[in-house]
């Protein structure tokens, strides 16, 4: 028998420690008093733990242990160890800041929650108001496509390595060092570039993606200063715009506030606005008289105007009225033009000079500094690059590989530059071609200053810790110039002597004492600008949402429908119905209603663009085409790539118009994502309108009250009610008034609502299926050549009448109507919900309880205003909807006060109930009443023209109360007697007839 192996349990056993034996005998070293416990019957019977209790404990422990074994998602919420003094969880902090990206400028207030910026609204200053792009920029902060650190040739690199290499190579560079930026309006940045320039002999070139070179040069020649003027539309009684879309994207400034200031019918006076343009622009759609012309004819009319004012000609029939009005409003008129040609702008200057508008409606003394780009310098730079004269190129705020017409020449030149640095926030078209990408910070993470006019400086302050390992361009330049000052210190030192630092930072702006620019009086050689253009003409424009395309990766903007075409996720050739017919092109609706169109090959000079969809646009001048810039990005990120076509290559000779353009129909069709598929009001009384003269005669004109014939005589709908009224006397009664005369259709409210209420983005395919989720939409209607009156006069039958009514006029009147939940006080939706998920509040609001909703959609069917939106899918955390709500970074923009809705539930405008609640709590805490304009909704606070007024209609001091009682006020579809808390005011146009 073999010897049995022995295993020791430890060294002690091998060493025969007596303790081992002792332990072997007793499993427990100390005796457990089991007998004491169980042996003592008396003790046991007296214990308070009964057998039943024991079983309960046993059951509970088993259940608890089992449950604990189940996996639940763990979401860590980490509390502050030390609470920052200024942050109270649940309470928002607001910071004043400034937006400027070379294309848009706005003084803003940033709402932060627990250290995250989530909402942007205007800093209430007369000078500016944020447009849709500025409001959306908060989402661009959380763009998952942003660079996480510095890059060299597409590989990560540490900042210190990059700095060492860059500094060494800059010192030994052969050729010029060029800093290519957008227009720099920051005095400190300018100073830093100068300092940097001293060290390396730098050339600074400013480049505007959307050039206004023509105007700058014209002013240089006319007045000796290369600036763009500041306009005062509020002082202009007659505004004549030759194509300038000043309510849209023209000149980076927001003019709608002052435009509307002089269009208040209550004051008995409105400016008269003539728009002579090619594409149907936002300004054109607001104009009192709109004259569609080809770009070439526009110039001929301009020259005709100039000659007529000079007495050298007689007025063309088209502009007879304009000449008469202008001559009778000297010093109170304004003529503007969007042309980027110096000679044309000089002629415009001459016209304004003849009309005596300088110093009155046009201020050259305190000009706008927002545009200073020099296209000649850019052209020279590209030439130098290709000639090998440039040794280093540092780019900031520009994307020339995308925005230049001849990007190929630039890219070729880039290859010949030995050191190329971009400071783009992401790998855009340009950054992918450079050696170093030293990502700049998003403006919401940055310090900065901005001087939009000589007498005012605005400040930029960070509202969040930098998300990534990025560095501001200013700091990079300081480092590369060997200056180790932090940019914040630099900024503070720069301004401390000039302004009161803390209060300026708090206010966002500071006034500067700046003398008016010294100007020479108008002197220029006015040359003829007559055009002999042939064939089809093309006019490029900036779309209302995408602008120059720098924020193309922002899903809010991509899904924001164009206010005119009401299409999103696309650009397209706009074409008039006549021209489309001549070229055999058409648009049609497919079986689910969505819009499809033909595609063409577009030839402009030597440039050929393939497969461009055409969209028939009422109001487009016959024989012309329009195309939006800013689309067709190839390296913007997952959202913006491949949306539309890039129109920048069509900007030939810095001109945004071209003639002798060819289009050729190609195979295939294109699907548009349109949120509105019908364009006329079908003779319905939805937007009530009148003219100024009629209004002055009878304030109720155009707003005839509806009366029903009853056995008690003629009665208004609300007097013949089946239902018991809610009590709206006690407490608040929230009402929202929309002044249709002031609404320019600018879309700011739509995107503000999107941002405040966590409205999901659904993408092009879903929008095509008519499933856009916007809680607030701006309906746009065109007038039709067919009206009820005409049909009656000509004896046209109902069927042909309605068929004809569906077709908009060739040059229609346009009207905008923001529509959100009307908060009916007799709501059709409330009665039909089987589970009472939508109910009425005591404050005149229609509530929607998401977690009670089972999703029958009955409420949406029964809503006459069709404002309810259904969650067809899960839009959050769903790879099929790969937008901001599908990544952790993008989700940081969500408003924590608003639920993210699950699939299968209905949602709609809540009148920003979370904001109302906040206002109520503030007032309650302070023990006071809510004052006028204190309660706001996202849309009302975003409206640049004050068209949306919100308040408590039970409070006589609130402006909404006076508005309710105004003669112009009416409720949409008032015959239904749904008793809406939202009401409208008639649209008034300043027309003769």
């Amino acid at each position: 028998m073999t010897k049995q192996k022995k295993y020791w349990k430890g060294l002690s056993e091998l060493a025969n420690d007596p303790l081992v034996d002792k332990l072997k005998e007793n499993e427990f070293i100390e005796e457990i008093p089991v007998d004491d416990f169980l042996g003592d019957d008396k003790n046991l019977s007296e214990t308070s733990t009964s057998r039943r209790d024991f079983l309960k404990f046993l059951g509970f422990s088993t259940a608890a242990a089992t449950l604990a074994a189940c996996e639940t998602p763990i979401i860590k919420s980490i509390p502050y160890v030390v609470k920052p003094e200024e942050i109270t969880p649940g309470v928002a902090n607001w910071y004043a800041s400034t937006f400027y990206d070379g294309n848009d400028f706005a003084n803003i207030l940033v709402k932060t929650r627990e250290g995250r910026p989530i909402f942007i609204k205007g800093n209430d200053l007369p000078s500016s108001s944020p447009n849709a792009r500025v409001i959306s920029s908060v989402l661009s902060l959380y763009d998952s496509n942003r660079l996480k650190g510095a890059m060299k040739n597409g590989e990560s690199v540490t900042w210190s390595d990059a700095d060492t290499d860059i500094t060494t190579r800059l010192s030994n560079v052969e050729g010029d060092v060029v800093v290519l930026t957008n227009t720099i309006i920051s005095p400190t940045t300018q100073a830093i570039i100068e300092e940097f320039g001293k060290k390396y002999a730098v050339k600074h070139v400013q480049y505007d993606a959307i050039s206004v070179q023509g105007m700058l040069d014209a002013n240089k020649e006319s007045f000796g200063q290369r600036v763009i003027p500041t306009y005062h539309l509020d002082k202009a009684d007659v505004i004549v715009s030759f194509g300038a879309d000043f309510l849209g994207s023209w000149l980076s400034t927001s003019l709608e506030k002052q435009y509307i200031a002089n269009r208040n019918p209550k004051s008995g006076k409105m400016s008269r606005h003539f728009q002579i343009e090619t594409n149907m622009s936002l300004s054109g759609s607001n104009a009192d008289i709109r004259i569609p012309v080809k770009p070439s004819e526009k110039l001929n009319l301009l020259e005709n105007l100039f000659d007529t004012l000079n007495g050298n000609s007689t007025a063309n029939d088209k502009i007879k009225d304009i000449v008469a009005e202008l001559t009778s409003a000297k010093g109170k008129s304004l003529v503007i033009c969007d042309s980027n040609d110096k000679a044309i702008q000089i002629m415009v200057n001459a016209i304004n000079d003849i009309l005596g508008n300088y110093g009155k409606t046009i201020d050259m003394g305190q000009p706008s500094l927002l545009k200073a780009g020099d296209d000649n310098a850019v052209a020279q730079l590209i030439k130098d690059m290709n000639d090998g004269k440039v040794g280093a190129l540092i780019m900031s705020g520009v994307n020339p590989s995308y925005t230049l017409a001849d990007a190929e020449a630039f890219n070729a030149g880039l290859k010949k530059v030995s050191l190329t640095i971009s400071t783009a926030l992401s790998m855009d078209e340009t950054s992918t071609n450079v050696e170093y990408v030293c990502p700049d910070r998003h403006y919401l993470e940055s310090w900065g200053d901005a001087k939009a006019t000589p007498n005012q400086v605005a400040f930029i302050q960070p509202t969040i810790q930098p998300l990534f390992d990025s560095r501001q361009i200013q700091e990079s330049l300081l480092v590369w110039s060997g200056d180790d000052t932090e940019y914040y210190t630099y900024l503070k030192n720069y301004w401390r002597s000039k302004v009161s630092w803390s209060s300026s930072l708090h206010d966002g702006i500071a006034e500067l004492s700046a003398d008016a620019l010294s100007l020479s009086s108008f002197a220029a050689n006015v040359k003829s600008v007559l055009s002999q253009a042939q064939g089809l003409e093309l006019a490029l424009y900036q779309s209302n949402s995408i602008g120059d395309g720098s924020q193309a990766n922002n899903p809010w903007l991509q899904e924001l429908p164009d206010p005119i075409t009401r299409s999103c996720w696309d650009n397209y050739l706009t074409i008039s119905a006549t021209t489309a017919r001549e070229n055999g092109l058409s648009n049609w609706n497919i079986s689910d209603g969505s819009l499809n169109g033909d595609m063409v090959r577009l030839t402009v000079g030597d440039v050929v663009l393939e497969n461009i969809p055409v969209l028939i646009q009422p109001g487009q001048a016959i024989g012309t085409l329009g195309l939006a810039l800013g689309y067709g990005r190839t390296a913007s990120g997952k959202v913006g790539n491949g949306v539309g076509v890039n129109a920048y290559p069509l900007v030939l000779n810095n001109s945004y118009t071209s003639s002798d353009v060819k289009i050729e129909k190609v195979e295939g069709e294109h699907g548009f994502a349109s949120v509105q598929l019908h364009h006329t009001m079908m003779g319905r009384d939805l937007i009530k309108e009148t003219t100024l003269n009629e209004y002055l005669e009878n304030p109720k004109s155009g707003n005839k009250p509806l009366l029903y014939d009853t056995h008690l005589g003629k009665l208004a709908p609300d007097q013949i009610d089946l239902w018991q009224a809610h009590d709206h006397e006690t407490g608040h009664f929230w009402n929202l008034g929309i002044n249709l005369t002031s609404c320019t259709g600018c879309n700011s409210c739509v995107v503000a609502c999107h941002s405040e209420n966590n409205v999901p983005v659904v993408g092009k395919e879903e929008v095509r299926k008519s499933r856009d989720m916007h809680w607030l939409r701006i309906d746009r209607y065109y007038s039709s050549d067919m009206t009820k009156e005409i049909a009656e006069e000509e004896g046209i039958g109902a069927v042909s009448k309605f068929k004809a009514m569906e077709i908009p006029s060739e040059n229609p009147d346009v009207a905008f109507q923001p529509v959100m939940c009307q908060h009916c006080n007799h709501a059709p939706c409330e009665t039909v919900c089987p589970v009472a998920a939508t109910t009425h509040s005591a404050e005149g609001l229609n509530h929607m309880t998401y977690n009670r909703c089972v999703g029958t959609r009955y409420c949406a069917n029964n809503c006459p205003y069709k404002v309810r939106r259904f969650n067809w899918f899960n839009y959050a955390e769903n790879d099929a909807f790969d937008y901001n709500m599908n990544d952790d970074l993008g989700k940081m923009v969500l408003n924590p006060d608003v639920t993210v809705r699950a699939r299968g539930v209905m949602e709609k405008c809540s009148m920003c109930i979370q904001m109302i609640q906040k206002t109520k709590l503030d007032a309650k805490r302070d023990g006071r009443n809510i004052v006028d304009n204190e309660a706001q909704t996202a849309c009302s606070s975003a409206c640049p023209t004050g068209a949306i007024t919100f308040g408590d209609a039970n409070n006589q001091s609130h402006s909404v109360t006076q508005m309710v009682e105004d003669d112009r006020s009416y409720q949409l579809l008032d015959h239904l007697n749904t008793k809406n808390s939202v009401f409208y005011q008639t649209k008034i146009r300043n027309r003769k007839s």
Partner: protein
Amino acid sequence: MQKESPIREPLILGDKSYHDITVDVAKPVLAKANKMWWIVFGISLVLFVWWILSVGYTIGTGIGVWGLNKTVGWAWDITNFVWWVGIGHAGTLISAVLLLFRQKWRLSINRSAEAMTIFAVVQAGTFPLLHMGRPWLAYWVFPIPNNFGSLWVNFNSPLLWDVFAISTYFSVSFVFWYVGLIPDFAMIRDKVNEKYWPLRKKIYSILSFGWSGRAKDWQRFEEVSLVLAGLATPLVFSVHSIVSFDFATSVIPGWHTTIFPPYFVAGAVFSGFAMVQTLLLVMRKVVGLEAYITIKHVEYMNIVIMLTGNLVGIAYLTELFMAWYSGVEFEQYAFLNRATGPYWWAYWIMMTCNVISPQLMWFKKLRTNIVFTFILALFVNIGMWFERFVIIVTSIHRDYLPSSWTMFSPTFVDIGIFVGSIGFFFVLFLLYSRTFPVIAQAELKTIVKSSSEQYKK
């Protein structure tokens, strides 16, 4: 002078004896299924599988897999619901109303008509469930005590009325049907040989509730039938009236119409009879019941179809008249748009199938022609589906604000759920035809000797 009353035409042909009837009715249950049955059952099963997949996909992914949109919130889902509920009307009407009116001809067809009702209501019931965004919370529509605070259902909502109307109708129809089945189950029980089919014997014994055929059993049977007929009759009218309230109480032009309740009931009877025709014309051939379901029956039903078809036609015209007479532009446009708008084809299919084609029934030659009847019944089924589609979709796709106007186009899931529900229905009906006595033979035997001639045998 001798006056002899004309002898009533017999309702059963072929000089059937009581035993013949028993054998004929029990045959499909006891014999093996023929090839035809398996082919039809196979097709239905495939469609039913499509239904299961479509339903699974819908519940798993979201209602977005259907073709609905922000403007058209209901389309095929509710169309199918109303269509199936309508079909579910004929059975109870035939057995309850015709029982009260002592119409003996109902006896050959009432069993299958009721079965069709039950199965149609089952199909109908799936749609309100499936069309919910969150069907797993469907129980919230019942007024049950709950721990969600003081949450209660909204008794103002017609959808809630639907819940009550449909569930009541289903339960009463089911009980009525079942009571009628008891003596027939007993017959089958008695015919099953326990030695070969012990399980069958057992099952039919349980199903027949120990029916013994005593006089007392028969007396109670008659009484219960009469009481249930009395209960079911108002339900025939109430259930579709209430379904019509879904539309009638809304504010949407084309929905908000006070004539909807009678109009819907007439339409329901119309479509229900058409479906009974479709099924029975096939069944009498396949199961060999030509002697029981005769041309006479077909003709009677055709007359009902013609009558209700004309009622529906009058309703259509009344709607048009009221739209014009009201002077309300939205109402007028809604009806003009139906007839001439983008869905004009749906409207004219409806008009042709439901109003024009039944007029052919005025000709006796046509209404006693089996093939013609079958084709016409299919026409009516199609027409009535389109009626619901027209009412639902053409009214909401262009309602008040033209800015929201759009169209609806079904996806393959929409189609799958609709076609699949037909498959589901046939699966149930085919299983029924192999396991249930398809003719109420016990009652039918009461009319075998309705003429003295027959007693002479």
